[in-house]
């Protein structure tokens, strides 16, 4: 046991002395959180829009005022004819044009129906979508108000929407759980695989294997420091997201850390597995980045919802540990869900973890033969 402690101490010393490693370990989480928190947002603010009002009556004026009042829009132009629409889009400053048909207010009053055309610049489809749905919401809101004010009760449709759990649609609430997954994957899998392959590359591994140290001592000694550091990272992210972004934490902290540890162990075993396949640090890094980080970013539901992926990708996403971890963390943080609701995802994660532990131990042993 003494030699094992020595191993862990040595590992901590090496991490502490390597500025690059330290930067990745502690700089990366903070930078990523701030990037995702501030810069990358799904919500839209101050999108430039224009209005082509062919009716110019009381109702349209009221709706335009509402659009103007919304934080999402910046009403930058009143157009006079259809010809201007395309021209404005080409100039590139306008994201959306709202067109009211002639005699809008009258039609709405008499027939209970009138047309609004919403044209968006779909060169950025995401933005176009969001802008469109915001506009729709404002229109519906107005219609609902008219109904409430007793205007003969059958004007348009009455739609009630509610955004559960994240009423302000703050993207940062969604990103923080995903970010925890990405950072843990990065620190646990990437860093361990690099640090084990470095021992191989430098020839130290040979000495260690010839020494009386048992292979599992070597693996554990390599993995333990990163487990500790990963937990530190989780705490950092939680604190930052709580105090900078006011991301709510509604669930049980103990459950949260238990699940995080489970995910870290999964990632660590992946890292060990990669290091037993790769012979040098570059390979380990490439495999970790392409094989782990990209899927974690793209297929876990972190950025793109799994449900809107094509079927083959949806199937593949099931073997990505981060997908399940993400469901768990979002559940705990945003919904306050307990283990009774999350046992299925937890079980899947346990199975994946065990699978990779067995696989990496086996692979590591094979390398010794």
């Amino acid at each position, binding site marked *: 046991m003494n030699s094992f402690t*020595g191993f862990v101490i040595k590992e901590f010393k090496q991490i502490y*002395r390597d500025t690059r490693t330290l930067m990745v370990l502690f700089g990366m989480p903070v930078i990523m959180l701030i990037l995702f928190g501030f810069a990358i947002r799904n919500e839209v603010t101050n999108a430039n829009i224009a209005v082509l009002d062919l009716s110019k009556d009381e109702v349209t004026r009221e709706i335009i005022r509402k659009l103007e009042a919304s934080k999402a829009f910046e009403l930058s132009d009143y157009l006079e004819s259809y010809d201007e629409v395309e021209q404005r889009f080409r100039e590139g400053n306008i994201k959306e044009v709202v067109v009211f048909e002639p005699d809008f207010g009258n039609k709405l009053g008499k027939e209970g129906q009138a047309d609004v055309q919403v044209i968006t610049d779909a060169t950025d489809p995401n933005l176009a979508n969001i802008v469109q749905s915001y506009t729709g919401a404002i229109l519906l809101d107005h219609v609902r108000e008219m109904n409430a004010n007793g205007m003969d009760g059958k004007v348009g449709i009455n739609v009630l929407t509610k955004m559960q759990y994240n009423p302000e649609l703050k993207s940062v609430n969604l990103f923080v759980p995903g970010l925890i997954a990405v950072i843990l994957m990065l620190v646990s899998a990437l860093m361990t695989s690099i640090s084990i392959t470095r021992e191989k590359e430098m*020839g*130290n591994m*040979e000495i260690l294997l010839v*020494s*009386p140290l048992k292979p599992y001592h070597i693996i554990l000694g390599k993995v333990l420091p990163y487990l500790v550091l990963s937990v530190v990272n989780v705490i950092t992210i939680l604190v930052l997201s709580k105090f900078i972004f006011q991301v709510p934490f509604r669930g049980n902290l103990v459950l949260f850390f238990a699940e995080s540890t489970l995910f870290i162990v999964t990632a660590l075993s992946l890292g060990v597995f990669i290091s037993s396949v790769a012979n040098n640090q570059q390979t380990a890094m490439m495999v970790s980045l392409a094989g782990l980080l990209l899927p974690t970013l793209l297929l876990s539901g972190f950025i793109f919802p799994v449900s809107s992926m094509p079927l083959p990708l949806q199937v593949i996403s099931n073997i990505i540990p981060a997908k399940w971890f993400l469901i768990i963390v979002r559940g705990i943080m945003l919904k306050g869900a307990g283990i009774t609701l999350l046992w299925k995802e937890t079980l899947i994660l346990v199975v994946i973890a065990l699978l990779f532990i067995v696989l990496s131990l086996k692979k590591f042993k094979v390398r010794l033969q």
Partner: protein
Amino acid sequence: MADSVIVTKDLTRVFGDFTAVDAITMDIKKGEIFGFLGANGAGKTTAMKMLTGLLTPSSGEASVSGYDVFTESEKIKKRIGYMSQKFSLYDDLTPMENIQFYGGVYGLYGKELKQKSEELIRSLGLQDKRSSLVGSLPLGWKQKLAFAISIIHDPGIVFLDEPTGGVDPITRRQFWERIYEASDRGITVFVTTHYMDEAEYCDRVSIMVDGRIEAMDSPEGLKASFNTSTIEDVFIQLARKAERGDE
């Protein structure tokens, strides 16, 4: 056979249909400096890996320090030292930290470890370098330090895999003085090398060609039986017959 420390009989290792080591037989005595020569790809590394317990032999017999390599490799590991061609120290640790780490790996601890580390630092003349990182030391010093560390636990045998690559003859000579010291203390030295002048320093030399040991004798004996003036000529005569290239 009373004080034989490495004994092999028809030791063989096969990878697929490639016989890397082909029935080698040797008997190395306690305190002997045994030079293990061979061209690249002759099977030296494979043979060494079998003796150090890194690789299981395909057939034959071998014992190291009286323990069987097939069944008792864990016991062997405690009684041997090993230094590889890639110097095995951590560049980002100080000499002292390296000594303490490897000492700990070989089961030394507490007072004994502390005392041995101090002794080692003193004998290597590293007192004023104790807080600088190993990466900043000259290669020759690193090699000496690595060697000293490989025998810190007083093993019966030390395996040196091309320990002096890349340094000048004077530094190599100094390194060999340390090897003699170890041998005087009763440590058996099993060393591979590419430098034929080093082969002359050994008590006994074996030359491997295509997985087989083609010659084994004292340097003088080899030169006499091949009728040459240097080991290098013996080596060239034998190695020319090789059919294999690099591994």
